């Protein structure tokens, strides 16, 4: 049996309104993909890291990832929070508070993150981190396989870890704006040879948009179908973060944090991790272009 983490029950957060989809996320799981366990973790990892820096946490601390609609939490004890990612109004007991900066919240106060004014995913870090029990080395919710804590529901009580020792803490961190147009670089392979060269070139042109069916598993796109030159089935093979899979309908899917560990549709190329934060913030309808990298 694992012992409960050392948390002060007086210092938790009570979920008042969970928003459309709010999950606990850290940097995700590593070393268990061979068991069929997705990596999970924050979709916009730089934004979670920034929020953690603002409240003095280490990079491994878990925070909350909101989706479009924000979240409302009651602080059961005094806490310091910071909200980053998709820009949104922040209120403490109804009064406007700073976005993208540390905010001291007195015990009993209501912290409200409003609907995102741009982008999709917001991150709320709390000094000490959200201290739900770790599963296979991570506190992240994995929505593909159901590992980790379930998405927040009203009435949930989230434990908060002991506050970090005060140290150098930035007041401001650089936070990129959500993209008006999404450009995803693409390193071709491992299965680019399943597609006509013209189809690869086509991916680099305008005409794609972010589809509404996008989620934590993948950024779905709609646009010109990418046609195969090879038929037949590809035996299931290992999948990576950022892999662009082409399913039979020819509409590219960019694998995000909750992607399956293996898959049987050919991967035409892989989007560098550095470009995935913008993908996590692109709303449905955002114009999208792939930029194939010609190297090696």
């Amino acid at each position: 049996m694992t012992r409960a983490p050392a948390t002060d029950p007086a210092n938790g957060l009570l979920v008042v309104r969970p928003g459309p989809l709010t999950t606990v996320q850290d940097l995700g799981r590593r070393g268990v993909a061979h068991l069929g366990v997705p990596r999970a973790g924050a979709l916009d990892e730089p934004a979670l890291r920034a929020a953690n820096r603002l409240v003095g946490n280490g990079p491994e601390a878990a925070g909350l990832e909101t989706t479009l609609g924000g979240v409302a939490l009651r602080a059961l004890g005094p806490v310091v929070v910071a909200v980053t990612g998709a820009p949104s109004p922040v209120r403490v007991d109804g009064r406007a508070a700073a976005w993208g900066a540390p905010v001291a919240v007195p015990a009993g106060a209501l912290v409200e993150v409003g609907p995102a004014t741009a982008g999709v995913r917001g991150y709320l870090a709390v000094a000490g981190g959200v201290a739900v029990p770790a599963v296979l080395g991570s506190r992240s919710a994995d929505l593909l396989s159901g590992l980790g804590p379930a998405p927040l529901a009203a009435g949930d009580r989230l434990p908060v870890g002991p506050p970090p020792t005060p140290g150098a803490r930035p007041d401001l961190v650089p936070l990129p704006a959500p993209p008006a147009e999404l450009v995803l670089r693409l390193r071709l392979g491992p299965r680019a040879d399943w597609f006509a060269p013209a189809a690869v070139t086509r991916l680099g042109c305008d005409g794609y948009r972010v589809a509404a069916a996008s989620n934590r598993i993948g950024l779905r796109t709609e646009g010109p179908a990418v046609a195969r030159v090879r038929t037949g089935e590809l035996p299931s093979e290992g999948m990576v973060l950022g892999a662009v899979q082409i399913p039979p309908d020819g509409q590219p899917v960019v694998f995000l944090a909750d992607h399956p560990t293996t898959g049987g549709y050919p991967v035409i190329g892989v989007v560098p991790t550095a470009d995935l934060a913008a993908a996590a913030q692109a709303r449905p309808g955002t114009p999208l272009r792939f930029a194939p990298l010609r190297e090696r």
Partner: protein
Amino acid sequence: MTAPATVRRVGERSLLVELADEAAVAALYGWLRERQAGEAPGALDAVEEIVPAARTVLLDGVADIDAVTALLRTARPTAAAATSGPPVEVPTVYDGADLAEVATLWGVSEEAAVRIHTSPAYVVAFCGFAPGFGYLTGLPPRYGVPRRATPRSAVPAGSVALAGPYTGVYPRSSPGGWQLLGRTALTLWDTGREPAALLAPGVRVRFTAVRA
């Protein structure tokens, strides 16, 4: 055993090794795991994931792509590295909803079908679909069966099932299109247990028939 046929670059930090058959996958996977856990892991020390699949081994989160590529090109895994540890016994009640259909596909009685399924020494080739869901090889190719035309919306946890060349055991209730032979009371997947997955890649497995 010969060197891997092809090492393909996947994105910035991953390599995909293509191999001739499942035996070569098992041998390379076992060799990589053993070396990574050993005294001199070298460049494998900074590899986050090693993921076997049907005809490939993926190495993900590779810090030194060139060094690992060179290592893969010179790797000479032997079959001895393919499996590890004692076999896991899966006591199975063979009363699955598709047992009769599978027996018909094989052209044998249900009793003979159970004997056929309990005979081979299986090995977990790879995992996927769900945490702890192993794709087990070992059944002779002539006993391969198609997936069901219409998947079930809920297959109970512990269901022992067949599809294509593989046998699998559902670690938890989920939708599924595999042919159900029976069920086991074993807990296949438990994140509070070490190891969490009973059927991890390289593990040998035997099925035994038990009464309900």
